[in-house]
């Protein structure tokens, strides 16, 4: 069983890798694009902090740390699950899913592996995020040991599962709606809420961001658990729990809707 999945993974990855090597210009263009976008965010922070020393007690390098963390998480998400964004259009409306359902493979696994070829460039984003994170790590003079490394891995896993679960959920919704529009589009902006300390928002919004749609766990809380271990000590574990829980729910929901899905064709 496991062997077969591994075989599929290897053969599809091999094809993806060949596609990837064939167009090297694209690789550099993507890298360039990602550098530009990250530069915009860093310039924004730099300009704001040239007028004030701290925002609600958070310094420039602390916010840069959160930004780096956010870039890693979104990069991982785009690499593996960005297909959710065009899932309604290319898989449901154009009917690619009908074909995939004929194969004796788990469709979620197959789509993810297949689409990895298109989105493997996002690895640049992850690398750049790690660079920003490391830079601010040195500037903040944080200590580094095995314990903190594991803490970081736990947080990143939790955050990645959390952000993916939102988009998986919305791609599952499109089984029912059958429209080209992806209902999760606003979430691309809503996740940005977690780039900044949760204390800057109004009370009602803070409540929403923590309890109702726990977006703050995508970057702010896990970063804070490393930056200010005294105050936010166990937040990396909470992040992992929230991430695992919502991811489990989303995957269940995805397969539940898939079973009830009738194709758009006849």
């Amino acid at each position, binding site marked *: 069983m496991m062997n077969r999945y591994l075989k599929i993974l290897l053969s599809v990855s091999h094809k993806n890798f060949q596609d990837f090597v064939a167009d090297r210009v694209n690789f550099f263009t993507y890298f360039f694009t990602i550098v*530009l976008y990250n530069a*915009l965010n860093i310039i924004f922070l730099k300009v*704001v902090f*040239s*007028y004030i020393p701290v*925002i609600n007690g958070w310094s420039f390098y602390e916010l840069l740390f959160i930004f780096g963390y956010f870039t890693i998480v979104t990069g991982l998400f785009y690499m593996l699950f960005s297909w959710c964004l065009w899932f309604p259009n290319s898989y449901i409306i154009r009917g690619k899913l009908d074909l995939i359902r004929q194969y004796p493979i788990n469709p979620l696994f197959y789509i993810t592996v297949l689409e990895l070829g298109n989105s493997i460039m996002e690895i640049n984003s992850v690398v750049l995020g790690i660079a920003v994170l490391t830079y601010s790590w040195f500037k903040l003079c944080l200590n580094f040991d095995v314990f903190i490394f594991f803490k970081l891995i736990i947080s990143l896993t939790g955050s990645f599962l959390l952000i993916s679960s939102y988009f998986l959920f919305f791609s599952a919704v499109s089984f029912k709606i059958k429209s080209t*529009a*992806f209902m999760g589009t606003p979430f691309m902006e809503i996740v940005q809420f977690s780039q*900044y300390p949760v204390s800057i*928002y109004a009370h009602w919004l803070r409540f929403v961001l923590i309890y109702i749609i726990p977006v703050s766990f995508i970057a702010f809380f896990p970063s804070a658990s490393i930056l200010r271990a005294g105050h936010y000590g166990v937040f990396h574990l909470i992040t992992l729990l929230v991430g695992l829980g919502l991811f489990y729910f989303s995957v269940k929901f995805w397969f539940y809707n898939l079973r009830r899905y009738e194709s758009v064709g006849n």
Partner: protein
Amino acid sequence: MKLSVISMKTVSKYSRLIDLNIKENFAYRADYLLNLFSALAMITVQYFLWSAVFSGQSQIQGFNFSDMINYIVVIWAIYSFINTQSVSYDIQNQLLNGDIGYDFLMPVNLYGYYLIRFYSQKFLNLVMIGVPVFIFSVVFFNINLISFLNIIFFLLSVQLSFFIAYNISFLVGLLSIFFKNIEGFIQLEKFLKLLLSGALVPLAFFPDWVEKISIVLPYRYVNYIPSLIFIGKINSDEILISIFIQLVWAVSLSLITSLFFRRIRNKVVIFGG
């Protein structure tokens, strides 16, 4: 008599085009609604971020908190109108797929045809996203409409902004004749537009040398100037000078683009043509 008949025909031809384009774009109602929610989410983040920034500082470079919120709302409302990246992608696709061959067959001025097509698309964008964002902000963020008197200048200025932004995107799209893959150019153009048109932060917040660079580039006149006119940050003399410079940019860029496009017409080679 004959002349007026021709001009009437032309007008009805183009008004029909506008009608058609609006209908075509209206098919994506759900997308507009979702993009509207995205814009509102982004404005909300910006609102709270700036309120935290201004809680320790009453003024930054002559902007106080309410100025800043007005500025952000107006700049993103205008951005929905002048966000002309789709022009570059569309021109690239037309050229690389060879669909432009069909367009050449049409009995219209092709430069004017594309202008109308994208203008109606972006105008719909402004009505469906820019205006609701503005209304939302008036209701929830108490933005003040004190400088509403400048509305005539503002409307004029925004039209010119569209022409500048549109022609730059068109030129970038035409580069695909020489380079095929122009993704890098498109992204670079978007980066410059976001940075130097004041969409990121007001240009006055940047160090002096960045502002000096922005004065010689057209991007300042794409978004920053109309926003400043709307929120009443510049006086009437400066408004007139700025609109004049916008006019110069718009006319010269239109001329360059239409001439370049005419030259390229003879260069396009399409398979099966």
